[in-house]
């Protein structure tokens, strides 16, 4: 598996905070969990209405998703399994050549 399967179980989720309170809460939890922010590039850019795409590792996803459900912040899972997406990035031919 590419990258030693390190992204297995990781997810990418999309959140768009509807209020400044939601944005503030998200920024706090992003800092706490030290998420990999895909967009925007900086946590400081997150505010009301900002589309945020977050890569969360498997061991942090439960904490983040529980927080989002409790705070009633809507989210959408963009990539369910990041390792699969990494593998699918390269065509079958490229994967075959690598093997």
């Amino acid at each position: 598996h590419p990258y030693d399967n390190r992204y297995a179980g990781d997810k990418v989720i999309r959140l768009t905070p509807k209020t400044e309170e939601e944005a503030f809460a998200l920024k706090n939890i992003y800092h706490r969990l030290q998420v990999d922010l895909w967009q925007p590039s900086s946590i400081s850019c997150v505010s009301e209405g900002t589309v945020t795409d977050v890569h969360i590792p498997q061991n942090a996803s439960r904490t983040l998703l529980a927080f989002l459900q409790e705070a009633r912040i809507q989210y959408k899972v963009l990539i369910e399994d990041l390792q699969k997406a990494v593998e699918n990035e390269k065509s079958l031919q490229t994967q075959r050549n690598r093997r």
Partner: protein
Amino acid sequence: SLSEYNYEVYHSLEDIQNWMHHLNQTQPGLVRVFSIGRSYEGRPLFILQLGRKSRAYKRAVWIDCGIHAREWIGPAFCQWFARDALLTYKTDPAMRKMLNHLYFYIMPVLNVDGYHFSWTHDRFWRKTRSRNSRFRCRGVDANRNWKVKWCDEGASAHPCDDTYCGPFPESEPEVKAVADFLRKHRKRIRAYLSFHAYAQMLLYPYSYKHATIPNVSCVGFAAHKAVKALRSAHGTQYRHGPASQTLYVSSGNSMDWAYKNGIPYAFAFELRDTGQFGFLLPEKLIKPTCTETMLAVKNITMHLLRKCP
């Protein structure tokens, strides 16, 4: 040969550099490859000069890709551009005019250390790979390290953050090497294009502040036409506008620096997609992404050659 290299797959840094050297040897009339310095980890920083060689004064367009390591579609496009330019020089009057009247300076991978690291260790690495003496974290955001409102809004002073601006402007040897080159050739270089992913946007200055550039009617119109040309290929929708409004405020980036240093047309492309794959754009989408982007880049370049109304 040009036709044997596969432009529809992502290539390692070594592959890309070998490809550049191959072009240098096989296309002497239109290609010159040279180095402008070395990266933090000692890798050469290669530039492809594309254009009919001439002793006469020629204006130039600068194109860089791979400022952020994980944005692989950028370097893929830079390679595609070179291929398309060389393949269509004889058959496409517009391309022939461009290569006869201009030089293109193409840097397929600016952040060579980061790109290599994203291939070998961490697919989602963004920054350079420079070390920090006081912190365990490595790397500087190569698009926050330029001397234009450096380390202000949208950048971070903390070395462990992904938007770390660095200990001082142009601290990164890669950034300094490019800045030195652009300063040296500032009078000839009329356009600066930087390729990133992902958001499907064509941006122009300013990024560091909410203000309008003096030549907005020219630059904005060029962006509008470029996006329209891009859309004509596959219907892909791109937004366009000043980066601070269209995307977000960020200080210390290369596009703003290029503009401030006298390059009148400065753009940043955020290529496909808008989130379905993000940085992991599948290889099968390289071709449509690059063919539509070519239309935008050619449109901007022709606009530049005609001069702004």
